């Protein structure tokens, strides 16, 4: 969550052009009929969250914790509606239990977008440490995950990963790297 003296770097969050990273994510979600998007907010994700709220196709809302959002999209999927969860690295760190006891054993195609904090210019030591727990947790459960760094690869990775998650009934984590989003920089 934002702290007053922190700001998003200029290249992230500006404009809502369809070819921005967040425009591509929104359109790819829509094309794959993912209409339910609960989130715990993150500064970098702000333009995506704002545009999801503005688009009546999506039901998007904040939850108090990330695992709550995972429960919601899991229930929705069993009820025939597709969803995805948006979060920050530190939020992913709260999910090991729900991944291991709900998403994986029940074979739920949980689609997670993680805005990556803790690398490439991190200014908060806690964030840089918690970031190091993310991939080991994903790997320990053999979960599919991709770190997206390039705009020209974004649509392909997101679209194919959603389709693979749904058809193989397996979770996927799409990690949005600062090289893609601009990340969050200390600016004071």
């Amino acid at each position, binding site marked *: 969550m934002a702290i007053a003296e922190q700001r998003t770097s200029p290249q992230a969050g500006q404009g809502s052009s369809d070819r921005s990273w967040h425009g591509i994510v929104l359109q790819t979600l829509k094309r794959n009929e993912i209409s339910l998007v609960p989130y715990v907010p993150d500064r970098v994700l702000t333009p995506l969250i704002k545009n999801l709220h503005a688009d009546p196709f999506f*039901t998007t809302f904040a939850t108090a914790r990330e695992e*709550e959002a995972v*429960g*919601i999209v899991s*229930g929705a999927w*069993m*009820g025939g509606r597709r969803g995805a969860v948006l979060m920050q690295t530190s939020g992913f760190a709260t999910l090991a*239990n729900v991944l291991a006891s709900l998403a994986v*054993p029940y074979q*739920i195609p949980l689609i997670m977008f993680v805005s990556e904090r803790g690398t490439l210019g991190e200014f908060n030591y806690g964030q840089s440490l918690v970031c190091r727990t993310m991939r080991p947790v994903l790997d320990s459960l053999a979960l599919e995950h991709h770190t997206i760094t390039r705009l020209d690869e974004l649509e392909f990775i997101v679209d194919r990963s959603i389709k693979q998650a749904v058809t193989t009934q397996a979770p996927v984590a799409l990690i949005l790297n600062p090289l893609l989003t601009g990340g969050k920089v200390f600016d004071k």
Partner: protein
Amino acid sequence: MNTRNTKVMNRFDVTSRLIAKLKHEEAVIGGIGNTNFDLWAAGHRPQNFYMLGSMGLAFPIALGVALAQPDRRVFALEGDGSLLMQLGALSTIASLRPKNLVMIVMDNGIYQITGAQPTPAASVADIVAIATGCGLSNSAWAADEEDFERLVDAAMSAAEPHLIAVRIDDKPGVGTTRRDPVQIRERFMHGLGVREPL
């Protein structure tokens, strides 16, 4: 909260009373442990979903089902200890106001399944007051079994989410859910009409 005028009921009995009232393929999400053991023991139905972990997520899972299928009434059964793990979910639900979601809290004030240790809320916190404070204005304690059935009837045709809290005894669950998560999920999806069996 030392002066309680609500009857101490039994989880299996109350769960059985709920199940007997379900005539329209209502979904029921059972929280972990005794809550879903008694749901199982009350008689398996295709619209039942049993959690085997993810403590505290019965209400969020039920919310997801309710958002996916707004024409189906969705019940969620949760223990007080489980709910304490995910109190934030109450305000999320209050904010979204799904008209088809009914939450039932089985409150015995203890972690029965781990050795009956008292919860940190026991004797001090009031689940209905917490829910009301979170914005769930249709929250009530069931005074006794008859009152529980009356509250369920009212929730069945309501246009707002309802929460019913029930004080229960310290008895363990009557049955044991078959721990087969893939089958539980698949059969639940069949029960909700999302999929056909192979």
